[in-house]
């Protein structure tokens, strides 16, 4: 029954009947919550400050769809069906999360796109651009100024490294030895010999010691592990 192509690709029956979510829009509300959640996970700590740039349809109809409140809810780790989403601004005030919204025009971006600059409790910072592509599904398009393209539906390893020979093979070897199968892999860089990022979607959950091990490899600057199920 696996169909080779078409819009229903990778969907299952709970994408048809479901998700349970706070309305009014799977793309503008549920998808926005998910983008916030991903930014929080990528940052790896509580968010203290967020500067949020809305693009396209997110800018034009986002307020009426609660996109702004949904993004803040996601940054605080709320789920897509959390009844507190409509009151997320008040909750953010309580929790000491400062935020601001602005209009942005992102180049070649999907109509439902957002750019987030977040700062965590220890001062860690992250810049991320993402799009809500329909049915509550999202794509991360940019991390810290480097291109990326992943859904965060599978466990994902994001490796920041120096652009030099042998890094990719050592990362994939370490994952392989840990019994982890790579489903997809993307590599991007800002310039030859500059900063690079690897986005690796895997079939198994990656243990914390394996991530720590990767971080110790020479040429690797930072490793982020994203598992939205955990």
């Amino acid at each position, binding site marked *: 029954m696996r169909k080779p192509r078409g819009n229903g690709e990778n969907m299952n029956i709970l994408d048809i009947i479901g998700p349970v979510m706070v309305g009014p829009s799977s793309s503008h509300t549920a998808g926005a919550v998910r983008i916030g959640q991903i930014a929080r996970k990528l940052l790896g700590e509580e968010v203290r400050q967020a500067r949020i740039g809305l693009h396209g349809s997110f800018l034009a109809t986002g*307020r009426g769809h609660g996109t702004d409140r949904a993004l803040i809810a996601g940054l605080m780790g709320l789920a897509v069906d959390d009844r507190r989403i409509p009151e997320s601004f008040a909750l953010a005030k309580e929790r000491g999360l400062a935020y601001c919204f602005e209009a942005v025009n992102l180049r070649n971006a999907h109509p439902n796109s957002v750019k987030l600059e977040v700062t965590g409790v220890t001062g860690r910072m992250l810049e991320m651009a993402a799009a809500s592509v329909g049915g509550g599904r999202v794509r991360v398009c940019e991390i810290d100024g480097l291109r990326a393209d992943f859904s965060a539906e599978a466990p994902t390893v994001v490796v920041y490294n120096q652009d030099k020979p042998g890094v990719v093979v050592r990362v994939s070897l370490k994952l392989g030895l840990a019994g982890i199968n790579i489903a997809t892999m993307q590599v991007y860089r800002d310039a030859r010999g500059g900063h690079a990022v690897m986005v690796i979607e895997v079939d198994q959950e990656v243990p914390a010691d394996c991530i720590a091990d990767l971080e110790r490899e020479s040429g690797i600057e930072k490793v982020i592990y994203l598992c939205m199920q955990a």
Partner: protein
Amino acid sequence: MYRSLEEICRTAAEKKMKFWEVIRADDCQERQLSPETSFSQMEAMYLAMKEADAAYDPTLASGSRLAGGDGGKMRAYVDAQDTVCGEFMGRVMERAIKMGESNACMKRIVAAPTAGACGVVPAVLLSMQEKYGFSDEQMTEALYVAGGIGGVIASRAFLSGAEGGCQAEIGSASSMAAGAAVSLRGGDAAKIAQAAAMAMKNLLGLVCDPVAGLVEVPCIKRNVSGAVVALAAADMALAGIVSRIAPDEVIDAMREVGISLPACLRETGEGGLAATPGGARAGERLRKDGGNG
């Protein structure tokens, strides 16, 4: 998920299974789950629909003030027992409006298949459970039927207004609900497919023209028409009426019609009702209020 209703019907006949059992078996295979786990997840969706229906608050209004309160009006009208369509259809309409309004007011709903069309399937299913006293297990089986039909539509066409217009959202929801209703009344797989086809045929060409780009006008009231059409299609199928165009070909036609729709009629809020003087005024007022809402 299956790519055609014909294949589901063939599998049901060959393996002597019911439509819903074919869909559950496919889900178990696809997500590597036990039948019990799959069933309890689907049952949770039905219970969430019930909970959302019960949680309706007639005093709520959406941020735009374009939506809210109509569910309460419908309930009072049906309670007075003097409706044109009779009490059962009155309750169906009431539930469809209530769920659509709850969605617009940022309450918790079940997207089925989308948030904009979230009122159709529960309006039909909850009202049938009330009328016939079906168990939650039977209702969960019916939800598998709805999901199976929606899966075929997702595979062959689309489920979003941005891609295919409102026919892809309300039309699909109506098609799903029609099949589920037939299944509850004991109709076989072929009749389920016929009901799905007839509901879709009756909503073919429906455009997505939301005022101010919001999931409110006309989306909420279209949930009513989706639910009513679903039940009419179910009764036609149960009477033995068949679609002259094969069910899978009806879905293919929905795809072709959707592709032919100009962008202004695919959720951009630039055509149809959104572009009327009244629709444009509402959009303008919301923009002045500071980014609608």
